[in-house]
């Protein structure tokens, strides 16, 4: 089965969202860190970059 290709720009932005989401999760679930502000900011960033990736992905769906 051939996987659909992802535009480079969308892939990069999704990668950024993934890293930020992982870091938010680490801060959320690691008691040694105990910094809820980091969870809020990195988590919000993950959501923001995910949202930014959407129009980059949608172009491929519409265009091809």
């Amino acid at each position, binding site marked *: 089965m051939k996987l659909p290709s992802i535009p*480079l720009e969308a892939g*990069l*932005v999704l990668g*950024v969202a993934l890293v930020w989401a992982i870091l938010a999760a680490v801060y959320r679930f690691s008691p040694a860190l105990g910094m809820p502000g*980091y969870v809020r*900011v990195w988590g919000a960033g993950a959501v*923001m*970059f995910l949202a930014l990736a959407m129009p980059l992905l949608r*172009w491929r769906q519409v*265009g091809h």
Partner: protein
Amino acid sequence: MPDITFPTGAANHDGADRVRLSARIAALPRVDRRLLLGFVCVSLLALVLGLGFGLTTALARGGMIALDPDSAYRVLTLHGTSAFFWWLYLAQVALMIGLAAGESTEGLKARPLIIAGFVVLVAGLVLSEITALLRTPLLYDANPDLGREDPEAVAGMAGGYLLLALGLVLTSLAAIVTVLRARDSVTGAMTAMGFGVLAWAGFLIVSAIAAVNAFLPNLLWAFGRGAFPADAATEWHILFHNLHYLPLMATVLTWYALTLETTGTTSAFGSSFSKVVFASYLVFVPPTSLYHMFLEPNLAESVRVTGSLLSLFVSVPTLTAFLVIVSSLELATRAKGAPAGLFGWIGRLPWGNPAFSAMGVAIVSTLLGLVFAFVLIQEKLAPLISDTVFVPGYFHFFAVGAVTETFLAGFLVIIPALTGRAVWQPRLMAAMPWLVLAGLVIFGACGMLAGLQGVPRRTFNIAYDGAAPAGWLPLMVGFAVGAMVFASGLAIEVFGVLRMLVGGKRGVPMAAMAPRPAGLPGGAAWTGPVAVVLLVVLMTGATIGTFEVMRSLPIVVVGGHAGH
């Protein structure tokens, strides 16, 4: 030695002929050009304020003028607020929307957002400056602990920064819409610069969220709507981390634009690799944030060690971008017949162009800053020198030499395109960045040496009733002299930029002397890698040297927790 003439007509690595940025900006609709000019003017106002208050601070630190403690903190607050926040972020907005507009043949999109952003940002600037001028000075981080007795000061500073955050969101959204609509109509692909602007704008929005996270609790407390923000220091550090990366990311993006504009050189590694480099800034931001917490007394040892290890990655994106730009310039210049030898090609670059000269100084200054930045983020050294004058000594290599020189270089390209006025005194303007660098070297060397000897960062009267070491004062005089030198160079540069706005001669923009891109041949370019190896050696040497200096100091430290 004459600059090399770069031939015209080659395609760039985005796969299409590109009109120069300055030409695209000159062709923008009148309303867009006025908006851009508005942001440029307001940012320059913030720079002038920051420069004036900064010089006053340095002169007072050198004992050349006397300030009472309250005035000293006020001047320091005004300097940091004007320069670190308002200049650096207003200039970023100006450059971001300028570069975004350069991607589109139809000008800016979502223009109402930019207009609203302009109004909000001007209101925020006014609120911040008035508060810092008239109320209790809270320093540039708007520390609520200093304003427990003056909630209006906390409200004013927090309110100003929250307006900055809102303005950044509005203008960033407009930049994102502009570059998204400028994508290739068939493939949807973006240029490297278009993607860079998208990433930069996204990062600005996240940083605005971090600002809300840091300052909204302060504002609510000041209005009696919330508890005192006990975690203010931690929340500030999250924002502060972003504020380190953002100007550097903006700097690197501007270098990309300036390299093409002033030499016609595109990346030898292609558009896709440039996009990866821009995205890498965002990848490295969260994992490297822990080192800002090294001064927190309750931080677990495991977190300190992890933070120290991760901090080693902090400069990866900037060094990668440095390698790409320097190698691309070397390949392109050698292809035009530059002399043999490792560094001979450097002299053939267009140093007579003020924008290129400022960018060159910015690159050198970035490398100098990196050498000493790694000293400060060592877990064992940070607690010893973070509250000393070592900090302003090293970070002005970034704030002034790297970022401010780059932003001014960007202005030297876009303002002539906006106003039709030629660069004022090009030879003088090309020389001034080097004067700034000379001043920074004096300022930085004296400041860092003084910091290693224990001179405090924010205490202006360091006589300690005659008990201070005799070596402190000469170093602080050198610190002030260095500041005078670089402030003089910077003031002349700002004057030159203002002359392009008002009263300057109409003429051909400087960048128009630079030709169109050249295709890049295969070949070797060793200067960039050699510079990075040298940088790593110097970083290691500076860190080891600092450890040795700290070990040799005849000082007995008494822990605060023991009650002394």
